[in-house]
C-alpha cells in the first residue's frame, strides 16, 4: 500500500474542472523558455519578412507620425511643446504611446488570433502576451536609439537639455507602462472570446484615448479645470515623466507617478485573473 501512496503523489499533471484565478507557473514558463524566445523572434521577424525596407519599418512608422504631427499640430494648429524641439517632443510621445497601444491591442487579440494554435496544442498560454510585450519593447528600444540620435543632433546645434535624475527611474516606468498594456490587453482578450464586438471597440478606443493622453501636446497646455481628467489617465504621467527625464521640461509629479504605478499593478493582476480563469475553457466559447 505504501507504494500506492507514493504513486499518488508523483503525478506531473493533474487535469480537473477547477479553474485557477491567480498565479503564474514560473517553473512551467521556464521549461518553455526556448519557445518564449522563438515566439518573440517570430513576432519580431514577421513584421518585416518579405518587405523591401526590412527592419527599417520599426523606425519609419514613428518618423512618419512625427512629421505629420509637426505639420498638423505644430505648424497649422500652433500647439506648444513645452519648448522641447518639435521633432523630439512628438517622437518621444508617439514611441511611448505606440509601445502601450501595440501591447494592449496585440494582447487583447491573444485568444482570437491564436485560436487555431491554442485549439490544437497545449503550451502555457501566457507565452503569447509575453512575446507581444517583448516585441513591442524591442521596437521601443530601436526607436529609443533613434531618439538619442536626434537628441545628439540638437545638442550639437547648441540646444541644452537639463537631463533629470528621473532618468534613473525610467526602467521602472517603462515596465509599469508594459504591465498596464498587458493588463488591459489580457483582460479584454478573455472577454473578446465571447464578445467579438470588443475588438472593434479596442482599436477605436485606443485612437480616441491617444488624444486624452499628452502625446501631441504637453500637460501644461491643458486648462486647469480639465487637469482632473488627465490625472485619472494612468498613461499620461509616464509620457510626461519620460520627456521630463530626457529634456528637463514639463512636469514630474511623485503623486501622479505613484497613482499610475498602483493602477498598473492592479490592472495587471486583474488581467491575469481574468486570463487564467478563461484560458482553460475559451476554446469552447470562441
Amino acid at each position: 500500500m505504501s507504494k500506492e501512496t507514493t504513486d499518488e503523489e508523483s503525478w506531473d499533471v493533474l487535469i480537473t474542472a477547477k479553474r485557477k484565478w491567480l498565479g503564474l507557473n514560473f517553473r512551467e514558463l521556464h521549461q518553455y523558455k526556448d519557445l518564449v524566445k522563438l515566439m518573440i523572434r517570430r513576432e519580431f521577424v514577421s513584421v518585416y519578412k518579405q518587405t523591401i525596407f526590412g527592419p527599417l519599418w520599426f523606425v519609419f512608422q514613428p518618423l512618419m507620425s512625427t512629421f505629420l504631427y509637426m505639420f498638423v499640430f505644430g505648424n497649422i494648429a500652433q500647439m506648444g511643446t513645452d519648448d522641447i524641439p518639435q521633432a523630439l517632443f512628438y517622437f518621444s510621445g508617439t514611441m511611448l504611446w505606440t509601445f502601450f497601444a501595440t501591447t494592449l491591442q496585440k494582447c487583447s487579440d491573444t485568444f482570437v488570433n491564436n485560436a487555431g494554435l491554442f485549439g490544437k496544442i497545449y503550451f502555457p498560454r501566457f507565452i503569447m502576451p509575453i512575446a507581444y510585450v517583448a516585441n513591442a519593447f524591442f521596437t521601443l528600444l530601436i526607436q529609443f536609439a533613434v531618439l538619442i540620435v536626434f537628441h545628439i543632433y540638437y545638442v550639437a546645434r547648441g540646444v541644452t537639455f537639463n537631463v533629470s535624475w528621473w532618468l534613473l527611474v525610467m526602467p521602472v516606468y517603462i515596465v509599469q507602462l508594459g504591465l498596464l498594456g498587458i493588463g488591459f490587453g489580457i483582460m479584454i482578450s478573455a472577454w473578446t472570446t465571447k464578445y467579438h464586438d470588443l475588438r472593434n471597440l479596442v482599436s477605436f478606443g485606443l485612437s480616441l484615448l491617444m488624444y486624452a493622453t499628452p502625446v501631441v501636446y504637453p500637460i501644461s497646455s491643458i486648462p486647469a479645470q480639465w487637469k482632473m481628467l488627465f490625472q485619472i489617465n494612468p498613461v499620461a504621467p509616464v509620457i510626461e515623466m519620460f520627456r521630463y527625464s530626457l529634456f528637463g521640461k514639463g512636469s514630474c509629479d511623485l503623486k501622479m507617478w505613484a497613482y499610475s504605478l498602483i493602477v498598473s499593478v492592479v490592472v495587471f493582476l486583474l488581467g491575469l485573473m481574468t486570463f487564467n480563469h478563461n484560458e482553460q475553457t475559451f476554446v469552447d466559447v470562441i
Partner: protein
Amino acid sequence: MNTLVKVEHLSKEYRLGVIGNGSLWKDLQSLSAKIRGKQDPWAPIDGESRFSRRDRFWALKNVNFEVKQGERLGIIGRNGAGKSTLLRILSQITAPTEGTVKIRGHVASLLEVGTGFHPEFTGRENIYLNGAILGMSKSDIDRNFDEIVAFSEIDPEFIDTPVKRYSSGMYVRLAFAVAAHLDSEILIADEVLAVGDIRFQEKCIGKMKDVSENEGRTVLFVSHNVGAVRQLCQTGILLEHGQINEYGDVGMVLQAYETSLRG
C-alpha cells in the same frame, strides 16, 4: 508496469446553441433587466431558462481508464463519439466538466499536423518553432535536426525555403518528422496520418511502434483506419455516445466496432 495516465470519472458537457445572447449589448440588457427585477427581454418565449437541460449535451460521460508505460492504446468510435473531446482534455486544451486526469511525464499531442508552422518561415526555422511548441528544447532539436530532415525526405536544398512554397506533402512530412522525434513519454496522435501517402503513413506507424517498443514510450492513437489501429495498438477503447463501450484487447475492441458499424 508504471501507470502513466489515469482517467477517472471524466465527463465533459457542452452547451448547445448560442452562448449568452450572442452580443455584449444584449447580455447587458439582460443583466440590467435582472438588476431592476424585470423580465429578461431576451429570454426564450416559451419561458424556459436559457440554460435549460435540453441545451446541454454530454460529449463524454463517466470515462475511466488507465494507460501503462509502453502501452499503445487505440481509441476508436464513430464520428461524434467523443474521441476528439477526450484527446483535447488529455492534451490540456480544454478543461473537463467533471472528473480528473492524472499524467506522469510529458505529453506531446499531435492533434493536427503542422500546428504553429509559420508560412513565412523557412523549413529550418519551422522545425525549431514547431519543436518548441511541442515542448522540445533547442538543444534537443539541434541534436535531432539531421535525423528530422532525413525522416521528412525533404531535399536539404529546400530546407532554407519558406514553407509557404512547399507542396502540401512536404509540409505534412516535415511536420510529422518533427513530432516523431519528440522525447516525450506520452505521444497523443489524432488522425494525423489521414494526410500523406500510404508509404509515408506506413513509415509513421512503424516509427511510432519503434519508439514505443525500444524506448518504452506510450502512444494514444485515434484513427478511423481500422488497419492502422490493428497494426499499431495492443489495447483499444471503443467510444459510443461519450461512454466506453468496450475496453481491452485491440482485436476484441475492433471486432465490437465493426459489429456496431454494421448494426
